[in-house]
């Protein structure tokens, strides 16, 4: 069900694009928000992509109405003239910088092999944020896409440190117990940083605000509910994220809730947007001169105020 011009306010279909090929913990509430929309008479579909730019592609082409992608990807696309707008924070960074036990803080990474997802990615951003206060430390940066692959490389000794997701940190602890520890908790140290955003086309945002609002409200409601029942969240994670046993799901749920990665208020305050843009600029992921300003890339006005955890 493609809808090339998502025009009418009374639209009863909603196609959603994820920037991942397989379901991830961070997106479990999104998934259930979409499920909930079905009970409101909206037919939803979910498409999985290999990267954020593919999700952007799908939305721009009208294959999907909404998508998630890294803030950096969406902002870069906007800068190149792709007609999309971020409308909500999907989640805040669920990342940890993990290093060998011998390394105490990011300053100790000098000369070590540190893995990155790609040149333009959240891992780069967070590694830069971690190293911000230690300008003297010059690690050797290696590009290894796939958090799982980086974990594999760390276990195999091909990599010393990397920014990894919660789930991978669990794996790492299990497969190489005692060898690694967390030296930098990204979400904890950067409460305002946006990791991933929900976006739609500028046209949809402009011409069908009610439709967008309806969707965002559903997401916000679901986000709020996660904080009320950690057990239900763990069960949801175990049932939707591949290869996650109940024990791991429980840990993931707890970690995520502790880091408050799902903003029930939409997490889209001007402060957060500015902090994210600043971080992108200072870390050199997007060259400073042509960064979009907040108005170009974001619309915070479609969120439902007052839903809180």
């Amino acid at each position, binding site marked *: 069900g493609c809808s090339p011009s998502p025009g009418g306010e009374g639209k009863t279909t909603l196609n959603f694009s994820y920037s991942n090929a397989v379901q991830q913990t961070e997106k479990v509430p999104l998934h259930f928000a979409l499920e909930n929309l079905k009970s409101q008479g909206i037919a939803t579909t979910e498409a999985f992509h290999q990267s954020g730019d593919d999700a952007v592609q*799908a939305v721009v082409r009208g294959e999907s109405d909404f998508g998630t992608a890294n803030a950096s990807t969406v902002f870069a696309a906007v800068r190149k003239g792709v007609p999309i707008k971020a409308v909500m924070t999907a989640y805040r960074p669920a990342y940890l910088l993990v290093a060998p036990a011998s390394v105490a803080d990011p300053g100790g990474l000098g000369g070590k092999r540190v893995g990155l997802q790609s040149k333009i990615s959240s891992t780069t951003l967070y590694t830069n944020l971690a190293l911000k206060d230690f300008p003297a430390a010059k690690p050797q940066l290696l590009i290894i896409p796939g958090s799982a692959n980086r974990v594999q490389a760390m276990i195999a000794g091909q990599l010393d440190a990397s920014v990894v997701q919660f789930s991978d940190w669990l794996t790492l602890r299990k497969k190489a117990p005692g060898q690694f520890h967390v030296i930098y908790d990204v979400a904890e140290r950067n409460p305002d940083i946006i990791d991933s955003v929900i976006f739609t086309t500028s046209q949809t945002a402009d011409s069908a605000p009610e439709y967008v609002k309806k969707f965002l409200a559903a997401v916000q409601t679901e986000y709020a509910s996660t904080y009320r029942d950690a057990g239900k969240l763990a069960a949801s994670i175990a049932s939707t994220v*591949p290869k996650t046993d109940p024990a791991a799901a429980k840990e993931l749920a707890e970690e995520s809730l502790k880091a408050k990665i799902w903003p029930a208020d939409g997490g889209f305050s001007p402060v957060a947007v500015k902090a994210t843009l600043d971080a992108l600029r200072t870390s050199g992921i997007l060259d400073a001169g042509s960064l979009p300003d907040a108005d170009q890339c974001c619309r915070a006005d479609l969120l439902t105020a007052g839903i809180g955890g």
Partner: protein
Amino acid sequence: MKARSRRFPGIRADVASGVAVLAAWQIVAVTVRPQWLPELPAVLTQVWALVTSGALSVLGTTAVTLLLGLLVTFVLAGAAAGLMAAGDVAERSLMPYVTGFLSVPHIALVPLFTFLWGNGELTRVVTTVAFAVSPVALTWTSALKQSPRELVEMAASFGAGPSAVARHVRLPAAAAPLVAGVRIGVVQGIKGTVSAEILIGIVGVGKLVTTASQTFDIARLYAIVLVIIALSIVFYLLLNFVEDRMTRWTS
């Protein structure tokens, strides 16, 4: 075949070498236990799981892409071959482009295709066509061009007109290489479809591979690769069989 069974009673050398490799695999897997090499039974269990769990149903999209791609390929290649076989000028004008396209590393075009057309069916079909179209066009051109001069003259000497010559001589003479073109097209098309799916990573075999490798399921990854290999071999054997049937008279 007879000589073969005489020298290796009951065993065929190719089967034997295959079994030897599998045995070596299993021995390494259970003795050295490298992380990257799952034990054979684990892989076979996964193959069985793939088959029985219905996970292979994603191959439906693969088949659709392949069919669409081959359809387009055969139409395009047919047109190009028809043009090139029809006239010397047309052939010499088009040939550099067709052979040139043959030396393009087609797989490098996939990012451009996804940039252009997204992750959808269109990109995958175009990739399939890009892989298959020039070899098929070349094979078909030579099939159409090879003129069995003596046979044509023979038919003419019995009063056959151009249409009778085409029907009774040129077409049957070209049949074998035309079928060979189809075989090449299918083999190349499978490569194209699978390449597109793996690079795009979210449909068909690509989805299987991505899921397995992102969830660290190494045994399953091996199983998927084995299934892909097995399926392409089956296709290939099928095509060979058809081709042999059609050219029985050459024996």
